[in-house]
């Protein structure tokens, strides 16, 4: 198991470096002087020509592309992602305050999708080719087909504007930032994000459960006199979780894609909303910082998938 994880880790780290090269290439493509992204705007405007030249030398901007890349990368890995072109604040700080809301939205969204996908997938597998199975298939196809922003608009139309049950903007009322209020704000975005991701998960659970339910050990459990509930949950489902958990972990980046859209519609102050507004306002340094963060998220999700795979399967765990 150790060797497997070390191998996977080294591959992922290698991939991460390749991606930083790609990101740096994009940085290089940005219009304007790259130094503007790496020192605060007020220093840039007020600083003397000598000061700028000195900074330029410090940042390696006079050197070859390789030197520039190396400086940029080491700074980035030390948490120095430059400064926002918009307001001169450090990018790390600007991004940092957006991570919390996004993690909150993704976490609850993931929970919702699992709560939809697991029971539905298990039921569909148990009653294959029943109306329930077809219904679940159609719902899952619907959840991948109907774009999340359109679902969001309909939901806002119905639940915010018609019934006025849930708010559709922001993370909480500035006047009443209580936990309950935050949860109230979280309901619609999390439900939509969860629904949008439940489709693929459900199909995975279903096909994995179909495989497991026809396995020999299920017949053994039946032959022991185990009741159906126990056969399905204790035996088949526990085995089907091995591939399913891996898929869920490696799907976390896709969950973020959904969050980007939902944050935009619901004015949710997370990374996705920041990214879209930075793109619209040409705040390149923030976009690049966001790109690095995504690369790290992808790397972490892949590693998490690998670790989960080794943890949940005793056959791998003890090898």
């Amino acid at each position, binding site marked *: 198991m150790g060797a497997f994880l070390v191998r996977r880790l080294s591959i992922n780290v290698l991939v991460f470096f390749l991606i930083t090269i790609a990101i740096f290439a994009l940085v290089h493509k940005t219009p304007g002087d790259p130094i503007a992204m790496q020192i605060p705007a007020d220093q840039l405007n007020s600083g003397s020509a000598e000061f700028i030249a000195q900074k330029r030398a410090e940042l390696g901007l006079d050197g070859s592309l390789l030197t520039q890349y190396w400086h940029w990368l080491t700074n980035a890995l030390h948490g120095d992602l430059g400064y926002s072109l918009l307001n001169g604040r450090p990018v790390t700080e600007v991004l940092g305050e957006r991570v919390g809301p996004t993690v909150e939205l993704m976490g609850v969204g993931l929970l919702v999708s699992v709560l939809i996908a697991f029971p539905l997938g298990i039921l569909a597998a148990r009653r294959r080719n029943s109306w329930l199975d077809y219904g679940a298939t159609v719902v899952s196809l619907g959840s991948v087909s109907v774009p999340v922003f359109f679902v969001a608009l309909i939901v806002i139309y119905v639940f915010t504007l018609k019934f006025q049950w849930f708010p559709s903007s922001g993370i909480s009322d500035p006047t009443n930032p209580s936990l309950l209020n935050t949860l109230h704000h979280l309901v619609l975005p999390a439900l939509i994000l969860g629904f949008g991701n439940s489709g693929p998960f459900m199909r995975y659970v279903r096909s994995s459960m179909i495989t497991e339910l*026809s*396995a*020999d*050990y299920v*017949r*053994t*459990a*039946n*032959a*022991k*006199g*185990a*009741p*159906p509930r126990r056969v399905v949950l*204790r*035996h088949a489902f*526990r*085995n089907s979780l*091995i591939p399913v958990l891996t898929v869920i972990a490696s799907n976390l980046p896709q969950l973020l894609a959904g969050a980007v859209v939902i944050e935009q519609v619901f004015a949710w102050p997370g990374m996705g909303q920041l990214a879209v507004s930075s793109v619209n306002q040409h705040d390149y340094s923030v976009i690049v910082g966001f790109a690095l963060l995504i690369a790290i998220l992808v790397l972490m999700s892949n590693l998490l998938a690998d670790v989960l795979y080794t943890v*949940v*399967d*005793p*056959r791998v765990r*003890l090898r």
Partner: protein
Amino acid sequence: MTAEQIPGAAAASVPGAASAPGAAAASVPGAAPAAAQRVGEAPLLRIDGLSVDFHTDDGVVHAVTDVSLEVVAGEIVAIVGESGSGKTVTAMSVLRLLPKAAEVSADAIAFRGTDLRTLSGSELRKVRGGPVGMIFQDPMTALNPVMTIGAQVAEAVVLHQARSDKKAAWQRAVELLRLVGVPDPAERVKQYPHEFSGGMRQRAMIAMAIANDPDLIIADEPTTALDVTIQAQVLALLKKAQAETGAATILITHDLGIVAELADRVVVMYAGRVVETAGVGELFATPRHPYTKGLLASLPRMDVDVDQLDPIPGNPPNMADPPAGCAFHPRCPLARDKCLTDRPPLLAIGAGRTSACHFSEELA
């Protein structure tokens, strides 16, 4: 279907001409070994007129047709046949362990006088793993890969406890594993199936099957997936387990060597039907069906040169489209015109013996 077939006449254990069904079971004095010699006793298990159909894309497959057999307490009955002969399907239908696609019909599947088909789900679960234990062919796939051996053996105990006592069940699991010869059971209960060798896994399967002191053990090819050296050990263990629990055993196998070693009585199946039944001694001495004879000829023996082995020519029939008449006729050395059109009924050919061959007399 031929006109002369009478339901019930094809019973594997056709008693004397007029005796009440089941009364004499297959236990005619002198014909069967000691365990079966309990005249007048009701059989432990009685399967009567069992048919199982599978609906597939290629049409209906008659996996088992009109099979009847009886098992009395304490005896070992072997069901023998090639793969696809319906022997496993017959055994699985007892505890209703067939997939949903299987359509089972029977006049009776009675265990200790109760028809198992009338039981509710929860009543049936009391029988499964309780008075009837099962051992499956491949111990690698038949054990749950993500549960420890101990948890799986203990589960078999807990499910049949009057009051759930997990600690006691766990101790019982250790004790059972010791009983079936798993070394250092207190440690090995904590291991997973992949940490057990094939033979050890099959021992664990046997431990699960005998966990609740069964009256009947159904063993489906219990040694087929094992190495030859391990096979002998597991067979010895099966023998021991059977002797200690006194459980009757249905032994499903294609290996006549195992039959000779363990069985009291033999039921030979071909193409979903019973073609011959006999006590093990008689069957080996004077097979009365050409298929049985062919099986015996293909069996390596100490007193015969290996190069004289004589496998049955041809392949088992396609069960979606079996041959007309006697299903064995395309491979039968005795086949004549009659065999192509008329399916021979299973008839009593002596005390406790039956055969489904038009020319069984010629083999006598």
